[in-house]
């Protein structure tokens, strides 16, 4: 399973094998992270949602 580092708490984040670009991963520290795939590398950034459609 690929790993990446949480930009908030610095700990490892387990990333699913079939992760999608733009996928939201919830980390154990309580933050939601957005997956950014850049040159084949998996990076994580805090999820910022301004607009949403809602349910």
């Amino acid at each position: 399973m690929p790993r990446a580092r949480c930009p908030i708490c610095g700990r490892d984040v387990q990333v699913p094998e079939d992760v999608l670009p733009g996928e939201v991963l919830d980390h154990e520290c309580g933050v939601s992270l957005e997956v950014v795939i850049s040159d084949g590398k998996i990076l994580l950034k805090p999820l910022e949602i301004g607009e949403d459609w809602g349910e």
Partner: protein
Amino acid sequence: MVSIALIYDIARWEERALLEASRKLSVNVNIIHVKSKAFPVDGLREDADIGLQRSLSHTIAVSSTVLFEASGLRVVNSSKAISLAQDKLWTLTLLSRAGIPTPKTVVAFSEQSAVEAARILGYPVVVKPVNGSWGKLVSLVEDDETLRVILEHKAFINNPQFKIHLIQEYVRKPGRDIRVFVVGDEVPVAIYRVSSHWITNTARGGVAMPAPIDEGLRDLALKASEVLGVEVSGIDVFEDPERGYLVNEVNAVPDFRNTVAVTGYDFPAKIVEYLVREARK
């Protein structure tokens, strides 16, 4: 084999569920994460028979749909339908003109006229921006003073969209409202959003429960979708004690995680089946 372009910015439970439904139905999916690359305005070619727009950002949803439509791809929902649905004023005027009951709403282009509008409607009123994507900026206001504070706060937001105010009557709904889902000419599932708070959105703590769909609700939902031209949508309906069903909003990129959870209805499969049927037309 039919191929669907899944166009999105943020992938959540819904997008995973759509991929899973496609796999089960042996439908190929071309995953298009709009933030991962740049797109040419002309000569864009995506290998798909039909597109499904799932972008959370309304702005990205409209722009990327325009782009893919220009390449000849049919996208659900269309750029026109998304544009109409994301604009509350546009939605309400079209619905009213088509004879669909909606909450009483007044539009004000200044703070002063917003206060006048609220007095005419009678407090409490709901104040919202015209663009539907900023649920956090929707307020329930009890009096002139609070309204002025909210309007002054909005005046500081450097975005012309927040200078237009929709002032709406507060519908005394019975502690819940209804989210009705439409796919094509079918109304397969609906939920109640139950809350002691006046905002019943499930992202804001509203609890989802299965809701029955009677003839009146079905007809209203289909008519509202037809007026806006949405094919896959979630329609927000209030139950007014006197007037009955009122259509409040139409969502062109509806979330459905909680709906699937409480109804057990396979909504993602319904969407994929619809796309396959449409692609074969």
